[in-house]
Each structure stands twice: as structure tokens, then as C-alpha cells.
């Protein structure tokens, strides 16, 4: 094998390694960050006569590898009905699907002293996340953009595996 061919092979290997390392770095350390704020009206369909109605504010923040999701529940009069704070990491960002994958490792809950006013949605979220954290040690979820209007800073996203659609404001 002549010397030129050997050099060509060496340079090719070097180039392939450089490309591979670059792709791996981008894959392992997605530079994408996200900050969403979503507000919702909550209704307890099983108790319509008592006007079981609450508001929910969800703040989602992910930067570098850190992720935080805060659920804040409010009564109609604006007083707090409880909060759930989840902390974890951003595992992946799928650019083709515009989807963020998270793993939540810790959760803090603070409840209103009057347990009867605890929103059903909060009970539901608390149960599902606790179940996953207790059994698997983590609560995995993904957020996928279904309808994005970056000019007006709005996005409709789909949470999985809960299969929840939600319209959110993009925060910069």
C-alpha cells in the first residue's frame, strides 16, 4: 500500500471520528432550552353542583440538562389550593418531532390545609407521579409541540404518557 493511500485512510478515519464526536456531543448535550407557562381551568365533573372549580398554572423550565416543572393550583378566590414541584433532567430533544423528553427524580407537594378543597386534578397528578417515582424511581414525560406560533409566543403541546393537550405561552 503506497504512502499516499495510507495518509488518505488516516485522514478519513480522523474526519469520521471528528464528525462522530460532534454528533455524539450534540446528541448527549442538546443545547435546546424551553420555558412554557400554561394556565388551565379545572372542573370536577363528578361534583358539578358544588362548583368544584379551580385554576392551574404550569411552568415548565428546561435549560442545559436541568428541568423543573411546577404545578400551582388555585381556588376561585385566588388563594392557593396546593403545589407540586418536580425536578429532574432533560434527557433528549428530538428536533424532527419537536419533542422534549424529561425524567423527574424528585417531587415536593404542598397542600392546602383544607383537604376537601384539594382539586381532583391535583389528586390525580399526585397519584400518577408518586406511583412512578415509587415503583421506577423516576417519572418520565415528554412534551411535544402540536401547533407552534413562535411570532405570537404560543404553542399547543401534547404531554405524554398522560396524553394531555395544553395551550401554553412561550416565555423567553
Amino acid at each position: 500500500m503506497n504512502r499516499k493511500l495510507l495518509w488518505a485512510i488516516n485522514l478519513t478515519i480522523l474526519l469520521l471520528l471528528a464528525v462522530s464526536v460532534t454528533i455524539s456531543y450534540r446528541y448527549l448535550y442538546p443545547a435546546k432550552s424551553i420555558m412554557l407557562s400554561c394556565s388551565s381551568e379545572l372542573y370536577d365533573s363528578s361534583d358539578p353542583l358544588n362548583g368544584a372549580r379551580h385554576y392551574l398554572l404550569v411552568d415548565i423550565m428546561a435549560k442545559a440538562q436541568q428541568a423543573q416543572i411546577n404545578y400551582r393550583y388555585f381556588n376561585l378566590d385566588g388563594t392557593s389550593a396546593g403545589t407540586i414541584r418536580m425536578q429532574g433532567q432533560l434527557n433528549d430533544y428530538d428536533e424532527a418531532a419537536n419533542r422534549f423528553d424529561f425524567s423527574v427524580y424528585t417531587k415536593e407537594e404542598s397542600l392546602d390545609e383544607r383537604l376537601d378543597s384539594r382539586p381532583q386534578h391535583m389528586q390525580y397528578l399526585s397519584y400518577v407521579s408518586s406511583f412512578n417515582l415509587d415503583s421506577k424511581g423516576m417519572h418520565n414525560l415528554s412534551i411535544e409541540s402540536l401547533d407552534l406560533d413562535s411570532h405570537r409566543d404560543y404553542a399547543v403541546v401534547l404531554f405524554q404518557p398522560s396524553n394531555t393537550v395544553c395551550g401554553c405561552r412561550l416565555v423567553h
Partner: protein
Amino acid sequence: MQLGDCLFDVQKGLLTHQVTQEQWQLPRAEWQVLRILLEHHDQVVPKQVLGAADAEHPPLSDSSVTRAIFMLRSFLGPVDEHLIETVKGKGYRLKLASSSAKKRGLSARYNWIKWQRIDVSTWMKMLIALVVTLIMVLVLGQWLSTVNLETQTTAPFAQQTLTLESGQQVTLSSFATSKTNNTLLIALAERLADDIKHCESTPWRKVFLSLSHDKQVFNITLRGEKLGQSVVRNLKLTDFRQSKAFLTDAWLAEVSLCE
């Protein structure tokens, strides 16, 4: 003339190893010794005969003959060196009759030695080719997994476009994790579509619906415009009962989806 793995051109005095493709132009002593051994193959040939003088050359000394035998054996290699046998006190014998049988018996050893004979540069070539192939496969796999040009966003399970009395159109999209067992979601979408159809007009252009995987939470997201501003409204209905009743006339009147 075939000698084990070697081909001997008697006329040119050229010995070629067919495995390594190595060629050896025999010096006079080796050429003469091998030629005479071939002429008397499978017979004992004394040193004096092997080193006899010819018309052009003087006789070879015993040590020259011994050295020529050594060189020939070296070139034949460990597999075929036995072809030239030393008969103590008498001379040498080139064994051609039994060589093929012995060669069969030595085939395993032969294969191993054949591998050993591949020189370092060949091993390097093979190693480089293997490394390059491996890296290319890894990079290609990684590239395919990261550079996917097809959009993989989740498609709605069902979608319908409603036309209101004013001619305004509203798109209603339902999202489900499975393509089966969506009876409740379909019924809820129909119920909601009936309600929106009765609106003369509405600020909402798109309606997104989903039912949680355990069918405990029904989510409605309305997307539209009011006074040139983008607006979103999220409604989440929770019902833990066995028989679900997410949408009622009273609730629809309360939330007033037309506004």
C-alpha cells in the same frame, strides 16, 4: 517442476514459493544440487555427485553442497523442508513419491503456517480496513438516528372541520394514545362539535381534544384570535366515577364556548 509449495523452473534456475510469491534465482551451487536431486529423485545421491564438476564449472566442495542443501531447505520452509532428506554417511535424497501423502497429513499445520507467512503490511491493511468499516458503520448508524428528515409529530386520531352559520371554519382534532378503544373520546368530540356548530361565530379556530390514558381527565384546548391577539383557553375536566359525564348541558352553558 513442483516441489511442495514451490515451483522449480529447471531451465532458468528459478524457485518460486507459490504461497508467499517469493522468487529466488538460485546461485550455481543450489541450482546444480537441486537439478541433480531432481534427476535422481527418491534415490540417495552422494555429496560427490551433487558437487561434481561440469563443462563450465569446477567441482563444489562438500561444505558448499551442505550449505546449498541448507539454503534450499530454508527456502522450502518448515512444511516442505523434509523433502530433502539427509541419509547419514551416504548423501541426500529428494522424496517426491511420499510428499503428497505427508502434505495431506500436515494440512492443518500448513494452514496455520500459511497465515503466519502473511507479512506485517498485509495484517496492517486488513486491520485498517476493519477499523474503517467499523467506524463507518457506527457513524452511519448515528447519522441516520440523528438526521431524520421526516417529521415525526403525533398525528391526530381524528380530525373534522366544522362550518358555522357565519361561514367560519373550526378544526377539531382529537389525540389518543391508541387507535382502538376510543369510543368515549369520539362521543365527547361529537358532543362538543354539536355545541360549537350552534355558535354563530366564535374566536376559536382550532380545538384540540384529548382523553388521558386512563380516561379520568378530559382536556380541551381552544386556540384562536381576539382583537388581533392570539388567545388560548385550556379546560380540564376530571371525573373519577365509573360512568363518566364530562360534558353536560349545564357545563357547556357555563363555559360558553362561543365566546
